[in-house]
């Protein structure tokens, strides 16, 4: 089943709203056009690891598998309904109107796919460099 059909199926089943489906389809079409514009782009392939590299006086090289994010997602599905309500209420009190139960594995997959484009470079005055990026 293609991604487009999957989104339409989720809409038909009432798992997502019309607005969410519209956003997903827009993201999908923009992703496809980006992929065709630069074939073999990192955005089409989901990265496997998150890399943190610190160079300078101390050298630190960390490779974290992004599968940990997916595995962590399974724990959110174990949160009992009444506990989720408490979390949502606490988050709302702190200015985040967010429903924790609305996070779906598809969302995490999409997030990971888009993390491939992310790169953070920090250059300190003392010559230390910090680089955070996702890749294979």
């Amino acid at each position, binding site marked *: 089943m293609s991604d487009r059909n999957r989104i339409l199926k989720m809409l038909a089943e009432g798992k997502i709203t019309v607005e969410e489906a519209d956003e997903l389809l827009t993201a999908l079409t923009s992703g496809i056009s980006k992929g065709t514009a630069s074939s073999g782009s990192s955005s089409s392939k989901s990265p496997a690891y998150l890399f943190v590299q610190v160079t300078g006086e101390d*050298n*630190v*090289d960390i490779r974290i598998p992004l*599968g940990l994010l997916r*595995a962590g997602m399974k*724990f959110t599905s174990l949160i009992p309904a009444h506990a989720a309500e408490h979390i949502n209420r606490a988050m709302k009190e702190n200015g985040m109107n967010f429903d924790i139960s609305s996070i779906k594995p598809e969302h995490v997959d999409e997030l990971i796919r888009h993390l491939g484009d992310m790169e953070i470079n920090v250059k300190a005055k003392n010559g230390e460099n910090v680089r955070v990026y996702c890749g294979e």
Partner: protein
Amino acid sequence: MKCPPMFMALSFISHSGAKIRIPLPLFLIWTLLLPIIFLKIILFLIVDFFLFLLHQDFRMISLLGAFYGLLCSLRGLKVKVGKKRAHGAIEIRID
């Protein structure tokens, strides 16, 4: 299907590039823990049966599955720390 990490390698790298690698066999720990794991699965299945009778949605076995998934996804983790003044580095790798 992914399986839990089987080795944890501890490496000491000198400034010249010489590397001492100590593989720690994690599979031995899993083998030793196997009877406890089986016991836990059986216990969780019994608890789940009672939870089902009590019309509860929560399943203990899914918690075990989630922990297993978390353990499996640890494969590939690598931490390397080196100090210029100490002329060496330590690397921990889970495979």
